[in-house]
């Protein structure tokens, strides 16, 4: 759809149920022209390469992914295969979106996912490089999409409380101090996007694993399986081909939910205790 047609559609959209005059959309002079350098890879076994595209007349109000939508719409209308990238909720919680923008997982800004980056963070005329998460344990399926099922398998190893439906006691029979609940929530906020892995030179998943272990291992519900859980999850992490932590703190810096690297310390301590006790 041409921009003019799109503008017409949106104007109609607003005028339909609206008797008052609206202000004009932001003037086009604020809009930007950008060059994108994007990783294209036709399937897991393809070698892949960076390809340049222009993104013209981009509004600073657009989200980064909306900018890619506009570029893709253009490519599609020219019968060129659009850039494949993952996204779903587009409100920063599903963990699906996963772009390395100018070398930074989830792009500029801190504590945000790719879908929450807005084009106002970029300047007219600039070049933006866009690459997928890169880690041995996250094979690329196409272009910017990767397979993160390794995270599911780590969770299968022990990221749960073994409790069958129907067997729970009354919820208030397990009192939990407010600050403990908050601490567990801080760790539980992980969205499983894998930016921590993508940012780490060792492709370590220890922030992801640490957050889940911390969430469950500090709560009373998680105590019966505390040692078994940490041992199983860490062992699974190693089997999946993730590396170890060497204290660079890149994971914490790019984490869209600002999960603290302190959880890795907790993970290490609990892992050692588990191993000493024979798990």
């Amino acid at each position, binding site marked *: *759809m041409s921009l003019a047609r799109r*503008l017409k*559609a*949106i104007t*109609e*959209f607003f005028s*339909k*149920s*609206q*008797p008052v*005059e609206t202000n004009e*959309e*932001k003037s086009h002079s604020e809009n930007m022209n950008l060059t994108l350098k994007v990783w294209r890879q036709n399937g897991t076994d393809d070698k892949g390469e960076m390809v340049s595209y222009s993104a013209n007349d981009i509004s600073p109000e*657009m*989200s980064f992914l*909306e900018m890619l*939508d506009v570029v893709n*719409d253009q490519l*599609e*209308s020219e019968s060129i*295969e*659009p850039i*494949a990238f*993952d996204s*779903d*909720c*587009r*409100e*920063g*919680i*599903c*963990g*699906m979106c996963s772009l390395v923008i100018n070398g930074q997982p989830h792009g500029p800004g801190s504590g945000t996912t790719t879908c*929450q980056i807005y084009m*106002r963070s970029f300047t007219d005329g600039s070049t933006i490089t866009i690459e997928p998460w890169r880690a041995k344990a996250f094979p690329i399926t196409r272009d910017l999409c990767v397979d*993160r*099922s390794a995270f*599911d398998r780590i*969770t*299968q*190893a022990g990221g*749960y*409380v073994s*409790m*069958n*439906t*129907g067997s*729970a*006691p009354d*919820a*208030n029979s*397990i009192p939990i*101090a*407010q600050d403990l*609940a908050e601490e*567990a929530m801080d760790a*539980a906020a992980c969205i499983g996007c894998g930016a921590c892995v993508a940012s780490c030179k060792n492709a370590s998943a220890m922030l992801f694993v640490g957050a889940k272990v911390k*969430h*469950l291992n500090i709560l009373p*519900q998680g105590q019966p399986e505390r040692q078994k859980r940490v041992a199983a999850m860490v062992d699974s992490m190693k089997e999946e081909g993730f590396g170890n932590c060497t204290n660079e703190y890149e994971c914490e810096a790019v984490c869209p939910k600002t999960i603290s690297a302190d959880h890795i310390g907790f993970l290490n301590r609990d892992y050692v205790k588990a191993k000493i006790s024979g798990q």
Partner: protein
Amino acid sequence: MALDAHIPSGPIAEKWDNHRFDLQLVNPANKRKHTAIIVGTGLAGGSAAATLGQLGYNVLSFCSQDSPRRAHSIAAQGGINAAKNYQNDGDSIYRLFYDTVKGGDYRAREANVYRLAQVSTQIIDQCAAQGVPFAREYGGTLANRSFGGAQVSRTFYARGQTGQQLLLGAYSSMMRQVHTGKVKLFPRREMLELVVIDGKARGIIVRNLDSGKIERYVADVVILATGGYGNVFYLSTNAKGCNVTAAWRAHRKGALFANPCYTQIHPTCIPVSGSYQSKLTLMSESLRNDGRVWVPRKTNDTRSPEQIPEDDRDYYLERRYPSFGNLVPRDVASRAAKAVCDEGRGVGKTGRAVYLDFADAIDRDSEQVIRQKYGNLFDMYSEITDENPYKTPMRIYPAVHYTMGGLWVDYNLMSNLPGLFVLGEANFSDHGANRLGASALMQGLADGYFVIPNTLGGYIASEKIDQVTTSHPAFDEAEQQATDRIEKLLSINGSRTVDDFHRELGLVVWDYCGMSRNAEGLIEARRKVQSIRDEFWENVTITGTLGGVNKVLERAGRVADFMEFAELMMVDALTRDESCGGHFREEHQTEEGEARRDDENFAFVSAWEFTGVGQNPILHKEDLIFENVHLTQRSYK
């Protein structure tokens, strides 16, 4: 076709207990001989997979995302209702039941809603035991907040990420069953056809979204937990991938679609900013606990909000509904916002927004307290709008959020097709014509954790299910239908993109079947939908091939189904010649502009039978019988 909802007899409070006793059981050793396909891994599908796996059934679990944890339930913010009465403020199972039936504008099935309220308390126990980090009081007990349409505090929450935490609870239970081998995961699969053998749902045809291959799966039963159809509007708060395809494919194979015109427009979303907009972002309803909604008293008042003195502001919800104030139900709040904007009193650059103001709450409680309660929501707002809601009021406008309609199911959550069960937002049964806040999470988990484990056993134990394999001719036929359709899509080679068609369709649905509808418009809209659909099948361009990852092809299939579904919405909205809940027919309103129901003629569920694309569907009615709740004009004044 006679519709039998199979509602158990007896007093409402005893129906579920009696029914569970009456249902035949499957011997534990026999459960392992039965397989259930579950499509969707949100709260309903995830909790069902976990629980059926624990019981010993073999579960095949499918989702379109790369991990079951990414289903859109994850985005639910505000909370989950339960009749725990921990606050000692007068709540009870009966009150939750009553509020839900009333909130749904008396268009829900009483027996289902009562069961929902009954199991709500077990859901909280279940989730707390899984380690869901619910908000707590200092003494360690669970905290509650209030939500729209209720005068008690019965909503449990985990910051503004309740859906995420509940889903991760269900997901982790499900992962435990994957570990034991009882649940097999099939991520990145999209259901394209339902396979029906001898009148029973026995399997599905899916496309593997990574390899592009078409695959077949057989089971004793098929459970759909595939969410709602809000993306028929193009712009909604749903995730980009949410779609009606699985439900619609089942509908085309004979499953009745109930009340498709019941859609929920959520009052507090971030307004549309431009034509490139790809989705709308919800601001949790919980904000209405502390935020005050207002617009200028005068039309076309262009002053900034800080410059508008108290006397020139109209806190229209507090004025019109003094007893519920800013906490009126969603349909009422949305229509009121539309009304003031239609009067020319809307704010922001488009004039399609109202203020949600926290100044009074910050004065009263301090910025720190407000930050604690809503910090992540305020952050999200300022990321998107580049404004600071601690200093200036938020601008909000209604947006499509949830769909109450869905596949018709009986009390056992089974559709009219034997062996096809439908859970969560994908079915129609519990919310009537309007859903109350914090009830979607409750329903998804009720269906998956507590209802289906009982009713599925009843079906398997009492029904003769023949042995079949995926080489049955019905699988050949269904696979052929799926591939024919894909090949047809790929062969069109037109000039308009899939999104372009989707946007055009969405505008028609929003304009004519959105917050208000009328007969003339709906007739016009049906014609428009037909013509967009005709053009789609002649002029859409789809790049790439069937093999490998092809996101355009994925979207094209979904949009093609939305185009057929949208027509059914128009037919349903036109047939329902009354206003109720989210379905507001302009011809039927009170003098004060509230929805006017017609209980004498429309106290029924509309269940539609597919007869062909562009053909008139056949209406089947399930009469709604209210034995416990007295039908009144809903009042929140």
